[in-house]
C-alpha cells in the first residue's frame, strides 16, 4: 500500500527505524518516474540516472520539512528529481556551445529569409513582410543588447534559459525577468505602430 504524506515525512527522518526502507522505496519511485519521463532525452544512460537519483535523494532528505503538503509527497519529490535531472542534461548538452558564437553566426538575419507561404494570398504575404520588417526594427531599436542577446538565444536558437543565464553571468529567474521585460517593451512598441490588431491576428496569431 502506498505511504501517506505523513508516513513519508515521518519515515524519512534519519532517526526513524523505517528510514532505510523509505529511501529504498523513494529511490524506486524516482527511478521509474525519471526513466519514463526522460525516455527520449539524449545522454541519459543507467549510470547517469543513478548519479542523478543519488543527487536528488541528497537534496530531498535535508529539506523534507519544506514540503508543504499541497500535493502528494511523491509528486513533490519527482518535481525536484525532474528539475535536477533536466538541469544536468541541459548542461551536458549545451556546455560546449558558445552563446556569443551562435548569436554572431545568426545575427539579425533571422528575419530576412524568404518565409512566404505560397498558399497565402499576396495581400497576406505583404502584411507578413511588413510585420517582419517592423519586428526586426523594434528588436534593434527598443531592446537593450542583453535583452536582444537573450531573446535570440532562447527564442531563435532554442538554448535553455538555464544555460543562457550561466553564460551571461546571471540566473534563470533573472533571465526570465529580462525576457519578460523585453516582451513587454516589444508589445508596447508594436501596439504603437500603424498596424491593426487584425493585421497581427491574420498574419501571426491565428494559424
Amino acid at each position, binding site marked *: 500500500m502506498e505511504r501517506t504524506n505523513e508516513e513519508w515525512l515521518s519515515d524519512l527522518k534519519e532517526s526513524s527505524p523505517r528510514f532505510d526502507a523509505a529511501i529504498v522505496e523513494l529511490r524506486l519511485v524516482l527511478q521509474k518516474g*525519471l526513466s519514463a519521463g526522460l525516455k527520449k532525452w539524449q545522454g541519459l544512460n543507467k549510470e547517469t540516472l543513478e548519479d542523478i537519483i543519488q543527487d536528488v535523494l541528497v537534496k530531498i532528505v535535508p529539506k523534507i520539512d519544506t514540503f508543504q503538503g499541497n500535493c502528494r509527497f511523491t509528486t513533490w519529490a519527482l518535481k525536484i528529481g525532474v528539475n535536477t535531472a*533536466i538541469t544536468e542534461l541541459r548542461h551536458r548538452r549545451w556546455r560546449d556551445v558558445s552563446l556569443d558564437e551562435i548569436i554572431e553566426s545568426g545575427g539579425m538575419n533571422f528575419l530576412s529569409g524568404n518565409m512566404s507561404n505560397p498558399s497565402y494570398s499576396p495581400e497576406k504575404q505583404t502584411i*507578413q513582410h511588413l*510585420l517582419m520588417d517592423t519586428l526586426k526594427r523594434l528588436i534593434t531599436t527598443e531592446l537593450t543588447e542583453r535583452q536582444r542577446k537573450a531573446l535570440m538565444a532562447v*527564442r531563435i536558437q532554442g538554448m535553455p534559459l538555464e544555460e543562457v543565464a550561466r553564460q551571461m553571468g546571471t540566473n*534563470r529567474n533573472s533571465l526570465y525577468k529580462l525576457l519578460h521585460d523585453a*516582451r*513587454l517593451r516589444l508589445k508596447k512598441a508594436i501596439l504603437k505602430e500603424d498596424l491593426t490588431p487584425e493585421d497581427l491576428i491574420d498574419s*501571426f496569431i491565428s494559424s
Partner: protein
Amino acid sequence: MTDPFQKKTSRFLKKLFTFAGTRNKKMQKGSMDMDTIKQMVRGIMTTRADEIDCAECFEQLDQFVELVLAGKNISDAMPLVQHHLEHCPDCKEEFEVLLKALRSIT
C-alpha cells in the same frame, strides 16, 4: 471510449506545444521558419504585466500537474502558472517530463 479528462489534458498540452514552441527543432544558421516567428509574435502579444517567474512557477508546479492529471480546469485554478508555462520553454519542458513521470508511477 476516450476519457473526457484525458481529452481535456490533451487539448491543454496541444495548446502548450503550439504556443511555446518545440525546443529540439534544428535551427539553420541565420534563418528561421514562419512557425518560429509566429510563436515569437504570439509570445510578445500575449505578454502580461503580472507574470510569475520560474521560481514561483516551480513552487506551484506540483499542485498544477496534479490538477492537470485530475482533469481540472487549470485556466481557472492556476492561470498564472499556465501563462508562465506558455512563455517559458524550460519550465514547459520540465512540466511535460513531470507529467510523463507521474503517469508512469500511477
